[in-house]
């Protein structure tokens, strides 16, 4: 006889500390006692998220979700729910504010990622089965171009690539001058370059048709018949699936001439980028498509007026496009009900770094950092303390523990000195050195600077060199002033967003972690123990049991000591690789 019910006990790391193992055993014991172990299977699972409300028990197929479950609650779950079929009301998840919260326990709402992991991206009919091309078909036959823009305006959708410019305005600029132009272009910016961000890749790999449909919608709204997708060659799988998707869309008459017999023509071509970060900047991207060197030019004129080959051009990011078919289909009002006052809808974040459940998460705007990190992301591994989250990549900054409860949207992140950016979110714990991380971002920006304008080319290099000196213990107090002094002109005088925002990581970390900079400069100390030049490894003789693991692992043979007696590191020869520190099971190797 197959099981009638399944009782899932969340056994993620945090739940394990909250007695999920005891609950599992108790549930097992009770099913034996009651003689129902043939009817219900008790199952240990991976982390379910919502760890702050753990331990969690979920009953399938009823989809009942129990939170804060204790060992004593096991009997109620078995007696009332499994045997009598009555859910245990007082264990069910309750929202603090039922009017505001979704009725689901999941914190995620997936609009841009609605099809990712659900459909076969290489089969257009699966996309069509899930309302694919319904928005385009409705638009072509029932809506005027201005109606589409009106719907986008109502939705409040803003660009998901970084700056957060209202999408409808971009479209409207081009729409309004469409009669004066002989040609208009639609571009999809798939040149995703922020370290740690990969939502665009995932959307193109998991649901390429949604982007094609949205580009066709943009074409219809703005009077264009030609679109380009600019994607980096480093995304071979996304490119392969895009080509297949385009071929199928043409085969079904959803791209090309006379789409669905409406008389509207629209086709798309792919242009491959070589992976320069600056080509994600729209004017540099346009130059690259034109076959020029990928360098930005001053704006205005904006691409909406004078873009690709001097023609009006609408350019949006992958995630922005992925939202659009759903907005058109369900209406801008529906979308605008999700999110905060000025930031509507959802945002996809790529959650990486020191986090248990790394991956792509899509949450309504206004979700707090705490909810993202602890409820969706499952918290920080090994019980370490949260230090900061970096958002916005090399253009952004850090959010610290004191702002864990700030609702995240474009405005709040800006006010905190960071930015939304494309949605990379790198979580740092107490073991990460803030100066070292900032140096990493500056290194990135210096490397990716196209060199066209002096503030970015020279200023970035200067700032990077100062950070390098600080991490090597050669910093002076003047360096802090110099960093601040360099940042302002760079922000004001650089030609494009890359240079203007490159000092942001420095300003943001100086704002919240000046003490840590000072520890490097004044005390020649790296509190996190990351900057090699400032770290000394020593063995605490009271803890060391003389197991000899460190001396055997030391690549420079500079740890000596007899078996079962405390070992010693020869500081003159220590290369500070940290292998002894990582290898010691007793915590005897210490960082000073």
């Amino acid at each position: 006889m197959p099981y009638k019910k399944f009782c899932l006990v969340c056994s993620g790391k945090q739940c394990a500390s909250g007695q999920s193992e005891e609950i599992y055993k108790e549930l097992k014991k009770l099913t034996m006692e009651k003689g129902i172990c043939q009817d219900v299977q008790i199952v240990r699972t991976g982390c379910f998220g919502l760890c702050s409300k753990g331990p969690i028990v979920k009953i399938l197929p009823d989809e009942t979700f129990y939170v804060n479950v204790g060992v004593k609650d096991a009997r109620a779950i078995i007696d009332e729910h499994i045997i009598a079929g009555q859910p245990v009301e007082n264990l069910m998840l309750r929202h603090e504010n039922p009017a505001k919260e979704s009725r689901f326990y999941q914190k995620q709402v997936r609009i841009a990622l609605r099809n990712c992991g659900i459909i076969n991206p290489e089969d257009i009919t699966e996309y069509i089965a899930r309302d694919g091309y319904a928005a385009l078909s409705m638009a072509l036959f029932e809506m005027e171009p201005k109606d589409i823009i009106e719907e986008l305006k109502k939705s409040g959708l803003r660009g998901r690539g970084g700056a957060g410019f209202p999408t409808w305005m971009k479209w409207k600029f081009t729409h309004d001058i469409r009669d004066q132009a002989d040609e208009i272009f639609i571009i999809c910016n798939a040149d995703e370059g922020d370290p740690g961000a990969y939502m665009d890749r995932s959307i193109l790999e998991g649901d390429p048709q949604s982007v094609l449909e949205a580009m066709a919608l943009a074409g219809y709204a703005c009077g264009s018949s030609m679109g380009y997708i600019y994607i980096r060659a480093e995304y071979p799988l996304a490119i392969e699936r895009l080509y297949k998707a385009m071929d199928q869309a043409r085969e079904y008459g959803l791209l090309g001439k006379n789409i669905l017999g409406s008389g509207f023509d629209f086709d798309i071509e792919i242009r491959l980028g070589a992976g320069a970060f600056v080509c994600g900047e729209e004017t540099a991207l346009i130059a690259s498509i034109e076959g020029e060197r990928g360098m930005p030019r001053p704006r205005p004129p904006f691409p909406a007026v004078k873009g690709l080959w001097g023609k009006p051009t609408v350019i949006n990011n992958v995630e922005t496009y992925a939202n659009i078919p759903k907005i058109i289909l369900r209406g801008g009002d529906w979308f605008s009900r999700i999110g905060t006052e000025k930031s509507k809808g959802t945002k996809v974040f790529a959650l990486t770094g020191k986090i248990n459940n790394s991956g792509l998460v899509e949450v309504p705007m206004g979700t707090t950092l705490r909810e993202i990190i602890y409820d969706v992301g499952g918290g920080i591994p090994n019980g370490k303390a949260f230090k900061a989250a970096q958002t916005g990549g090399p253009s952004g900054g850090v959010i610290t523990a004191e702002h864990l409860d700030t609702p995240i949207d474009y405005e709040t992140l800006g006010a905190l000195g960071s930015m939304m950016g494309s949605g990379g979110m790198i979580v740092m714990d107490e073991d990460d050195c803030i100066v070292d991380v900032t140096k990493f971002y500056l290194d990135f920006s210096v490397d990716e600077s196209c060199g066209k304008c002096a503030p970015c080319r020279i200023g970035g290099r200067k700032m990077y060199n100062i950070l390098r000196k600080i991490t090597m213990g050669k910093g002076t107090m003047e360096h802090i002033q110099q960093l601040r002094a360099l940042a302002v002109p760079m922000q004001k005088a650089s030609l494009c967003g890359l240079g203007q925002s490159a000092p942001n990581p420095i300003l943001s970390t100086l704002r919240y972690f000046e003490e840590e900079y000072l520890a490097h400069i004044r005390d020649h100390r790296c509190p996190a123990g990351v900057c090699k030049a400032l770290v000394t490894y020593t063995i605490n003789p009271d803890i060391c049991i003389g197991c000899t693991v460190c001396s055997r692992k030391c690549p420079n043979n500079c740890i000596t000591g007899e078996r079962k007696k405390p070992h010693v590191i020869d500081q003159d020869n220590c290369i500070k690789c940290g292998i002894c520190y990582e290898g010691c099971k007793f915590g005897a190797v210490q960082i000073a």
Partner: protein
Amino acid sequence: MGMSREELRLLREKKRLELHEGKDSENRIEILIGMGSSGIASGAKDILKTLSETLKERGINNAMIRKTGSLGLDHAEPTLEIKMSGMPDIIYGKVTSDVARRIVDRHILGRELVCGHVFDKPAQDVVKEPEHAI
């Protein structure tokens, strides 16, 4: 082959029915395997191979394997989702070849869940949900 608006609508209904029937029909098993970059990097191609071989060895010929993009559960890749009648839809993560074989033997044949590898759906399906749900 250009389609008319009506043909698109008919195609949608036909395909929807096909996918929907697949779920309810007594003898069809659907296996979704995440084949985004992160899934493939974690070994999804090997899992796909093991799955098809094991299904063949066990003489299961009513299982349909569908390759999808990434669910976003990158920490738990490779991921699989099993949909079959009489069982709730289940997402499995951290699937190794050994786990894949256990999924065939225990979940598909034995109709029980494989301990330690069950993961939760990250979100409700916004396409299926009724109006005003959010």
